[in-house]
């Protein structure tokens, strides 16, 4: 696959990612227990919000960024068959990001950054939190630069040849992340850090929320693209078949990268600072970005169907039974797609301009994003880890049976956790609350759902512990079965010999994104400088 140095680099990133993950899982279970009010000794709003903020930052920023960087280095070296460009720089990015995490962790864990992972002002955290988060993001930009340089160098060295699909997706994700993170970077650099350091007295929450909306939706696709990459480049091969269409995969990644960006105002439907016309424009874009997910669903299921039929499956659905259900990659994709169906439906409701009013700021929203992120995305991170670990350390996975059990538990736990969460939203339970103990009939009706969520969280926590245990045992196994294989990428049914540049490069799409962003965010941001606004005083720490 790639040299020992690259394997060490990738493993270091992945271990940081999964260390953050397991800590965040314990916090998640504490939160659902605290919020239920079933154990009075746990009741503490300050501890709860410190925990929620840390849980969100660890899951949404630390786990994802480190995982995506580690996975990206592995994909780039394996698919392009060339070493990491500028290894010292790659380590520099890793250490910069890690220092950022440690710096942000101190105020988070001491309750001085209980601003949730969206950190909307005027609530303000200790400056160390914002500076730490900035270092984390800058570290990830180093990774983006390395991915795009490797992509570009390979194209220069192989003129006219088709960039491997896995690298095309990874480079598209690097481009997407550079665009995505720019919004929050502007907010943090020009608003939150100056506010937290006392350089400015007030902040404009409308501008801050607009800039965060720039980041808030495409970040979901930054997290999802590695999962989709595994869908396309690993799953068909692991299932014993072929990728249905390489071209459709590229189109899906392009549409994801382009249309994930100019649509963030569906998070602001209830906000007063943006006009309804802009919200409608972004709302329409939100439905457009559902298309590549449908294309992905079709292509991946078609690839599975081919594999199932090649394995002897007959009839309209008989091929499903002949799939290798004990293969962790295949099982994960099936469970991931199931969760994507329900999570995607929740997303369509969120994006529906009128109906959003029904579920806005209710428990429905965390139910939705836990299903998409904790469900579809994370279960594919597990599958990728199970696939890569033996190749990265040269030892067979400690227990495939344990891995399969863990994946099923994650799916069951996520279903039990998120279904009542959605119902609670429809029953009117607000999100971002530390207590539901108001003792009236409405909140008493929430109790059974709270109990179910605690149970679902416990299953998830058990599943997460099994996952980490399996990886640790694999790594520390003194008498392992040696593994010396390479990453195996799926072949398409019809080999791709030549592609038009728009399906093989990103320059055109980068320009398209620039135009769409100027159209969809240009005036909505500039308006804050055209009109007289009055900032809010900071409150918090």
């Amino acid at each position: 696959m790639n040299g020992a140095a690259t394997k060490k680099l990738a493993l270091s990133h992945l271990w940081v990612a999964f260390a953050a993950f397991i800590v965040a899982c314990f916090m998640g279970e504490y939160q659902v227990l605290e919020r239920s009010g079933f154990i009075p000794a746990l009741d503490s709003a300050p501890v709860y919000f410190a925990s929620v903020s840390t849980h969100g930052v660890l899951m949404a920023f630390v786990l994802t960024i480190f995982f995506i960087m580690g996975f990206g280095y592995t994909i780039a070296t394996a698919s392009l068959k060339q070493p990491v460009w500028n290894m010292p720089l790659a380590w520099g990015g890793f250490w910069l990001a890690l220092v950022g995490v440690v710096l942000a962790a101190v105020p988070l864990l001491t309750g001085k950054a209980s601003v949730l992972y969206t950190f909307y002002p005027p609530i303000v955290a200790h400056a160390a939190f914002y500076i730490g988060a900035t270092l984390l993001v800058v570290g990830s930009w180093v990774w983006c630069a390395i991915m795009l340089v490797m992509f570009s160098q390979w194209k220069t060295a192989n003129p006219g040849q088709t960039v491997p699909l896995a690298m095309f997706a990874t480079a598209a994700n690097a481009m997407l992340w550079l665009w995505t993170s720019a919004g929050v970077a502007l907010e943090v650099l020009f608003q939150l850090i100056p506010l937290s350091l006392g350089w400015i007295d007030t902040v404009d929450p409308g501008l801050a929320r607009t800039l965060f909306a720039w980041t808030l939706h495409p970040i979901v696709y930054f997290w999802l693209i590695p999962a989709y990459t595994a869908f396309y480049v690993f799953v068909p091969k692991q299932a014993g078949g072929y990728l249905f269409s390489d071209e459709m995969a590229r189109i899906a990644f392009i549409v994801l990268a382009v249309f994930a960006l100019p649509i963030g105002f569906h998070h602001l439907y209830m906000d007063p600072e943006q006009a309804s016309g802009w919200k409608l424009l972004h709302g329409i874009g939100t439905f457009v970005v559902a298309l590549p997910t449908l294309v992905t669903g079709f292509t991946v299921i078609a690839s599975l169907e081919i594999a199932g039929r090649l394995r002897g499956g007959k009839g309209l659905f008989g091929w499903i039974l002949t799939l290798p259900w004990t293969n962790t990659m295949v099982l994960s994709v099936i469970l991931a797609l199931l969760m994507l169906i329900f999570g995607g439906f929740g997303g369509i409701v969120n994006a529906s301009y009128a109906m959003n009013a029904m579920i806005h700021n209710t428990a429905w929203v965390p139910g939705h994003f836990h299903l998409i992120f904790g469900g579809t995305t994370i279960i594919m991170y597990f599958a990728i880890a199970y696939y890569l670990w033996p190749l990265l350390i040269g030892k067979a996975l400690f227990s495939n049976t344990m891995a399969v059990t863990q994946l099923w538990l994650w799916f069951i736990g996520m279903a039990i956790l998120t279904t009542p969460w959605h119902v609670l939203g429809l029953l009117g339970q607000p999100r971002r609350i530390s207590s539901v103990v108001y003792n009236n009939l409405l909140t008493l009706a929430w109790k059974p759902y709270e109990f179910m969520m605690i149970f679902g969280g416990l299953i998830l926590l058990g599943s997460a512990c099994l996952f980490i245990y399996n990886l640790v045992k694999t790594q520390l196994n003194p008498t392992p079965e040696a593994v010396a294989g390479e990453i195996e990428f799926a072949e398409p049914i019809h080999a791709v010999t030549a592609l038009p540049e728009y399906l093989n490069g990103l320059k055109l799409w980068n320009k398209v994104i620039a135009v769409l962003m100027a159209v969809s965010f240009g005036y909505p941001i500039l308006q804050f400088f055209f009109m007289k606004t009055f900032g809010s005083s900071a409150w918090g720490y």
Partner: protein
Amino acid sequence: MDQMSEEDRKRILESSPVGTFALMSAVIGGMAVAWLFLYYGVFLPRG
């Protein structure tokens, strides 16, 4: 899989993924029905 003839294999690779079309149709149809139920059955009655 090993006993499959080259002819069968080729036929499968060139065949249309009818099962996928059926599954995707069911999923999209189900989503549309669920959305309509939420809109007309839950959202509008709340005023």
